[in-house]
């Protein structure tokens, strides 16, 4: 039968209104079979609203949706699945306690003659699909015991099994290592060959140019344009997203580093890292680069006092600084902006003011009594300084965007007046505009004589910002490079364990 439609999915004039807000205005989006189509825009541009409409989570206010040429009204997530639309989210949606095969067949388990579940068939079919993806995972294994990357692959396999016509990838590489990312891209190519349409969402511009054919840019709920990625440059795309010309976003003013203030000697925690040695100078931006799981986070947590180290010493201003609890580290002037904001950085159910004063509560307390008025003033001051977007500091943090939440975490430490700021993956889930603002905060911090340690698995970020960088591989310190020595290839080689 000849193909009678041009697009797998066609959205026309989609508008979505929430009480008081228009999230989308007359947006068009067309996905061709076998195409990888990027959906880009800052946080709040309307990307996730579109996706949620497609996946049946929201219903559109007006507009038309066609799937394979047929007009449809997507009523529920289940309906979306039946239409052949599927999504891979960064936080994987699988039943963690069930096996791979059980996840594949959830809701449609095959039965044998006796009316019992036909496990043999389930395992066989699951294995076939996983093999076709060149992923070698036992169908009987419990999903919870797999790595994030493997779980992502299982989700994709599940969609293949359900014969999805359109697969949406929402920040799929956020938690993957470079190798795993490559593997994912291979699988995306395979999906392309099967004529599956793909929507790809990522904050990593480089990836979009690497893998996507076309890109639709959204800004403030309106479609800016749909472009072929061949025809434009990265900075063109960013300008379209933010609506202004962007110079190099990593271009910040550096300070001349002063004396050594943090010294780490033979730091060891056997499970996580071994024999780590480095020095950080005052006013410096010191990078810690390595793949996820290479021990970067664990090192700073040990320095900070959040985890215990086994061997080695830490010196702050030439004094021994072997901290066994975060409060000791904080007292000595360390600040940790942790990698997992929602789980470690911030209390989502509490207000901006309460979060801002969480560390430096003693500054607004007299004789054990909190001065709430003063607390609000402090929060207000940092809200203005960091330009956190919120109507008042009484706003609950859960109602803020990722970038603004991150600013609240930072203001917590600014209120404390810490000296050494440790940023662990500071820009995950943060849009381009807010990213640049966070880098501006870096500039302000070092200008004020503070010191920064930044951990990132996003190479352009560390290369762009750091004065020096320590590279880790599987708990080992590979090298410390000066800014002049920063080269993508060299760094990646070291981070993969090749000297």
């Amino acid at each position, binding site marked *: 039968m000849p193909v009678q439609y041009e697009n797998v999915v066609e959205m026309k004039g989609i508008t979505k209104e929430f009480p008081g807000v228009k999230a989308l205005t007359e947006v068009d989006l067309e996905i061709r079979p076998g195409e990888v189509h990027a959906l880009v825009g800052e946080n709040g541009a309307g990307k996730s609203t579109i996706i949620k409409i497609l996946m049946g989570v929201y219903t559109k206010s007006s507009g038309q949706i066609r799937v394979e040429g047929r007009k449809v009204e997507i009523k529920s997530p289940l309906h979306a699945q039946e239409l052949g639309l599927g999504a891979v989210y960064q936080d994987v949606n699988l039943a963690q306690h069930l096996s791979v095969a059980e996840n594949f067949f959830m809701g449609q388990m095959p039965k044998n003659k006796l009316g019992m579940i036909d496990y043999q068939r389930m395992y066989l079919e699951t294995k076939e699909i996983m093999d076709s993806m060149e992923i070698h995972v036992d169908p009987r294994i419990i999903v919870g015991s797999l790595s994030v990357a493997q779980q992502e692959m299982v989700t994709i396999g599940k969609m293949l099994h359900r014969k999805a016509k359109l697969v949406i990838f929402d920040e799929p590489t956020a938690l993957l290592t470079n190798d795993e990312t490559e593997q994912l891209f291979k699988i995306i190519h395979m999906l392309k060959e099967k004529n599956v349409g793909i929507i790809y969402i990522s904050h990593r511009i480089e990836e979009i140019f690497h893998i996507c054919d076309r890109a639709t840019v959204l800004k403030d709920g309106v479609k800016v344009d749909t472009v072929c990625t061949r025809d434009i440059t990265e900075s063109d795309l960013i300008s379209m997203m933010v609506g202004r010309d962007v110079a190099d976003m990593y271009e910040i003013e550096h300070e001349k580093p002063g004396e050594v203030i943090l010294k780490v000697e033979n730091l060891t925690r056997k499970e996580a890292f071994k024999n780590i040695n480095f020095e950080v100078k005052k006013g410096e931006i010191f990078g810690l680069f390595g793949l996820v799981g290479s021990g970067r986070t664990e090192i700073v947590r040990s320095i900070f006092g959040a985890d215990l180290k086994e061997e080695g010493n830490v010196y702050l201003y030439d004094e021994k600084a072997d901290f066994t609890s975060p409060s000791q580290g904080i007292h000595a002037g360390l600040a940790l902006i942790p990698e997992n904001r929602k789980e*470690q950085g911030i209390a989502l*159910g509490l207000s901006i003011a309460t979060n801002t004063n969480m560390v430096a509560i003693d500054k607004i307390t007299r004789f054990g009594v909190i001065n709430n008025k003063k607390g609000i003033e402090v929060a207000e001051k940092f809200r203005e300084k960091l330009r956190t977007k919120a109507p*008042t500091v009484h706003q609950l943090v859960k109602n803020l965007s990722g970038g603004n939440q991150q600013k609240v975490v930072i203001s917590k430490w600014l209120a404390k007046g810490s000296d050494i700021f440790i940023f662990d993956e500071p820009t995950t889930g943060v849009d381009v505009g807010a990213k640049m603002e966070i880098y501006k905060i870096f500039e302000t911090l070092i200008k004020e004589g503070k010191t920064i340690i930044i951990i990132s698995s996003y190479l352009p970020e560390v290369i762009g910002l750091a004065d020096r960088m320590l590279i880790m591989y599987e708990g080992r310190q590979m090298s410390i490079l000066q800014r002049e020595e920063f080269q993508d290839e060299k760094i990646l080689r070291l981070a993969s364990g090749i000297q």
Partner: protein
Amino acid sequence: MSVNTQKKDINRLRLFSGSLKTELFLVIILIILFVVFSTTSDVFFKFDNLKTLLRQTSIYGIVAIGMLFVITSSGIDLSVGSVIGLSGVITAICLSRGLPLPIAIILSLVLSAAVGLVNGALVHDGKVPPFIATMGTMTVVRALIMLITGAKMISGLPKAFKGLAQMNVIGLPFLFVAWFIIILIAWFITKKTVFGRNIFAYGSNKEAARLSGINVRTTIYGVYIFSSVICGIAGILLTARLGNGVPTAGDGYELDAIAAAVVGGASLDGGEGSVIGAVLGAIIMATLRQGGTLLGINSFILEIIIGSLIVIAVLLDKMRKH
């Protein structure tokens, strides 16, 4: 500029009313209950009856405040009923042997605090889930009471002590005044002290609280000891009211206390809850019981109504928040 400040004021007002909404909603329920009961029963609104109501509510209400602290820290304390029994029995034993009241009180409260200390240690250092830890102490403490008393009531308490429960202070029942003082203290702790703030911070996000330098041990030990000491006080007051040391006293109070806190807007996930809400929750439950009994409603039907009310109140609150 003035438009801007006006806007700010409106926002502030809106947020203020937002935080008060649960309480407002509870006050409305309470008013409805009062109207219904006063029109259907001619004794309900009598001063004497209201005083009895306050006396009865007070002890539950005190326990509910301790429970509120624990729930806000994302824990739960099932041992409250047993601690009430323990403290009551210890007070009764002391007094019946002729020891002075202050010593009896101190001894009861110290032993109550010890139970809280064990709970705190199990939850913080032992990493035992609060439900299990406090279920354990609930069972053990109740059994200890039975062993100490031989499961027999302790009588022969001094008249002056029994009189406490009937005493009035500036025209109000002493029990209610005691509750009121505890409400004030608890309100002050949640709003104005670092310990109070830390309970919310820890309840809302444990790891963020720890990485922010909050002393997690003090916070957890603090809430469980606070809850137990509060129950110790409730136990002494209950003994005065009953006139005897009753080994089974306080049995089942944990569920009423949890209900009061939750009806009052506290979330079992932690990080959310208010003292005023828990107080209103306790008053509503007691009013239903008292009013229903006065009206001669079948007690089983009354329990059906109360059980439904708990669920409906929480359902409505959830719907309002989303």
